[in-house]
Structures are given as structure tokens and as C-alpha cells.
């Protein structure tokens, strides 16, 4: 990890009103162009940490720096993919994907052109006119991903994006995500509670301890992905070692 971190988390803590301490003194550096996973048991504050990085929740102490700049709210260099998709039920796929650009005041023609391209890229071509209620969970999450990609942010924050889709869709989606990232050079911060998902996708896995969440270990599974099939990767020694190492740590928390 020689490249300079694009996101720095410095001594971040979060105590909610009512005294629940979700995070305590989290320090973290996230390298650019890589996929980092925040992994931990339920309630360890991983989603809270992601939303603090997004600027959606203010930290109680500490600070976030993105490209050296202190974060005090959402910014154009960060885009968010929501666990519950957060799609407008009254807007069709095209408008939902273009919504980030709409909020930025992009002219209709331009934003629809970009949205159509993104929709095709996530494999939803032909569904531009459909409404969210007519789509399956996996398709809705593709819309959420396309919306995040449409604003062309360098950093994509994903909050358990595959938690409510079935296993086949999930695996297919993971592969597509990896493909997409190879081409796009995005920095992705990904929250999950699935060990296999973390090991399969990540360049860097940040393991968080239970509440209050702190960084308990950072694992960098050096898996060679280029040109290999998903099944080959899942039989890779480094992949299996990473899964095992994570499990050895997480099982202390069970």
C-alpha cells in the first residue's frame, strides 16, 4: 500500500443520543482505486462508519478526510448505494438513475443520455420505463448502483448492497461489480457481514469488533483475479486463507 490514502478516518467515535456508543476511536486509511470492505458482526457500527464517511451522519469525535479535505457533509466525489435501495417509487428506472444528476441541475437530455448508458452497463437495458415496484430486489439494487455510477464519483460507498437479494443474483452481481471496477478505477468502500463476500471482493478487509466498534484487524488477501473464473478464485489458497483468518477472529465475537 504505497499509494496515498484517498479516505482517512482519524480517531472517529460516535455516540448516539441516548448514550449508545456505536464507534470508538476508529483509525483507518483507504487506498484509491481499491475495494475495501468493512466487515463485522451485526451492530458493530459498520453502517454508521460508512454513513459518517459519506457525510450523512456527523461523528461525535475525530474526523474524516477525503483527498486531504475534511468532510463536513456529502460531496460530489462520493456516491452512496443504499441497503434498502432508496428508489423513488413514483419515478421510472430512467429517472431514478438520473436522479443524482437531476439534483445537481444537469439538463434533461444530458442526464438521460448518461443514465441510459449506465442502465445498459448494469444490464438493465429495456427496463428504462419500469417502476421500482415492478422490479426484483436484484434489479432494484442495479438501479441503485447505476444511480451512484451516473454521478461519476471517484468513491462509491455501498451499504450491504446484496443483503436482500438471493444467492445466485448475489454471486452474479459480485462478479459484475469486480468487472466494472477493473474498468472504472473506482475506490469502493463496501459494508457486508458475509465473510465470503468480503474475501471474494476485497483488496483490503477491515474487521470491526462488536459495539462499540473499533478496528480489530486489517487483512489484505492478495488474490490474483485477472483472467480467472469465479470458481478458480474461490479455490485460490489466498482466498481460502483469508476466509479462515477472518473466521478465526470473528468467532471470538459470537
Amino acid at each position: 500500500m504505497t499509494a496515498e490514502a484517498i479516505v482517512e478516518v482519524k480517531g472517529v467515535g460516535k455516540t448516539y443520543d441516548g448514550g449508545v456508543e456505536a464507534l470508538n476511536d476508529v483509525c483507518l486509511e483507504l487506498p484509491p482505486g481499491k475495494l475495501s470492505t468493512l466487515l463485522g458482526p451485526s451492530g458493530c457500527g459498520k453502517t454508521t462508519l460508512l454513513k459518517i464517511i459519506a457525510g450523512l451522519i456527523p461523528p461525535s469525535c475525530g474526523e474524516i478526510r477525503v483527498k486531504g479535505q475534511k468532510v463536513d457533509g456529502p460531496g460530489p466525489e462520493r456516491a452512496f448505494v443504499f441497503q434498502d435501495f432508496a428508489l423513488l417509487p413514483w419515478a421510472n428506472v430512467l429517472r431514478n438513475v438520473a436522479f443524482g444528476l437531476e439534483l445537481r441541475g444537469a439538463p434533461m437530455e444530458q442526464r438521460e443520455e448518461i443514465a441510459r448508458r449506465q442502465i445498459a452497463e448494469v444490464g438493465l437495458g429495456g427496463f428504462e420505463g419500469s417502476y421500482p415496484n415492478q422490479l426484483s430486489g436484484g434489479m432494484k439494487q442495479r438501479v441503485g448502483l447505476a444511480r451512484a455510477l451516473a454521478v461519476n464519483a471517484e468513491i462509491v460507498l455501498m451499504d450491504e448492497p446484496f443483503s436482500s437479494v438471493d444467492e445466485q443474483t448475489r454471486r452474479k452481481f459480485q462478479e459484475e461489480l469486480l468487472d466494472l471496477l477493473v474498468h472504472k478505477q473506482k475506490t469502493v468502500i463496501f459494508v457486508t457481514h458475509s465473510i465470503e463476500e468480503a474475501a471474494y471482493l476485497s483488496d483490503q478487509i477491515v474487521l470491526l469488533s462488536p459495539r462499540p466498534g473499533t478496528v480489530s484487524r486489517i487483512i489484505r488477501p492478495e488474490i490474483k483475479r485477472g483472467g480467472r473464473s469465479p470458481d478458480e478464485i474461490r479455490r485460490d489458497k489466498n482466498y481460502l486463507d483469508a476466509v479462515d483468518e477472518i473466521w478465526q477472529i470473528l468467532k471470538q465475537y459470537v
Partner: protein
Amino acid sequence: MQRNNLIATRVAWQLISFVLFFGLWELAGRWPISLAFPPFSKTVVALARMTANGSLPRAYLFTLQPLAIGMVLCGIAGIGFGIGMGLSRTIEWFSLPIFIILQAAPMAAIIPLITYIYGIGLTAKVLAVVVLAAPVIVMNSYKGIHNTNPSLIQMSRAFLGTRRQEIFKIMLPHAGALIFAGLRLGLAMGFIGIVIAELMITPTGIGDLITYHSSVADYPEMFAAILSIVALAALTLHALERLERKIFPAEIRGT
């Protein structure tokens, strides 16, 4: 093909239900159960007579005017206030208890009080409509805004939406269906308000027709007036409900 059959069957059953109802009415009127209960046929004839001699249209001119004014007032001020309650904590804390009480209270009971303050003119009738219709309109607008999916608001903020965009692009579209439903329910209350006002405060319009024909024992005319206002209210509300389903179909409603 099957769908058409289904619709045809439904319409047939509805027709049978109407025929049965009016048939029983006719029989009961001819029995007769009471001298004050005219058969359906005589009521319809009376209705035609009153329409032809202009007394019914004239009455509706009187009745519908305060109803329309009251509904427009509620539509503007009530929806505006409800939205304000949904957006501002201060307004919410200040007025939510009042509207919860108003919505639960039998507001018709205070209609006679209106006379003491506003006399028996148009103002009093408009006020009777407003007093009954406003609570549900305000509360529905408030709930529509207040119950906006918090995840959508967060999404708007994550994509750099301003507060203004949050209101106009997320909250208001989300609240649209509930606000419309509030207006429909408000109109139903408004019909009740106007009839009570005309029976109790100001003997004008359709209320006057009912009272007058009852006092001179023209029972077919009295029932014709009642039938006409019931039919008008039912048809209007039904049309609004269909319109509502057309503008806000189930698949695009916010949940």
C-alpha cells in the same frame, strides 16, 4: 375476453343490487309502512317535477356555493398548514394536539355555536363546511409529509440535494396520494357540514327543501331532495376515488 366477462358480471350484480333496493323501496312505499314514506316511483316523479320547475337547481345553487368556497379554503389553507406541520417541528408541536382532538371530536356539535358568532349568512355555512372538512385534510397532508421514507431523504442528501429539492422532489410527491385522499374525505365531511348547516342554521338550499316539504307534508318532494343530495355526494366521491386511483396507481405509491 375473460376480463370483459368479469366486468360484465360485476356490473350485472351491481345493477341487481340497485333494482332490488329500489324495488323494496317501491313495495314498502305502496304497503304503506307510513304515510310519510312515499314509494320510489312517486319520489322519482317528484324529483323530475322539482327539476323541471327549477326549485331543485335553485336550491343547489345555494347549497353548492358555500360548499365550494369552503372546500377551496380548506384545499389551500388546510393543505398548506398540514405541509407546514410536517416540515416544521415548532408548528407540529404547537398544532398537532389541536388537530388530533378536532379530528376525533364530533364537530357537528359545534355547528349551532357558529350562528351565535357569524349569524345565518353565507359565512356561517362556509364555516360549517370548513370546521368539518379541515381536520382530515390537515392531518392527511401532515402525515403525508411526516411519514416520508427517511431513507429517501438520506438518499437526496447523499446526492447533494438541497432542502428545497428534498421538499419538492421527495416529500411532496410522496405525500401526493395521501393529500388527495384527504381532500376526498374532507369533501365527504363537507357534504355533511353543509346539510347540517342548512337544516340547523340557515334554512336555504337543499336543507330548506327538505324542511319545507316535510312541514307541508309533501313527502315525495322531501324524499326527492334527500335522494338527490345523497346521490350527488355518492357519485362525486366515487368519481374522486376513481380519479385518485388513476393519478396514483398502486404500483407507484410510496410505501
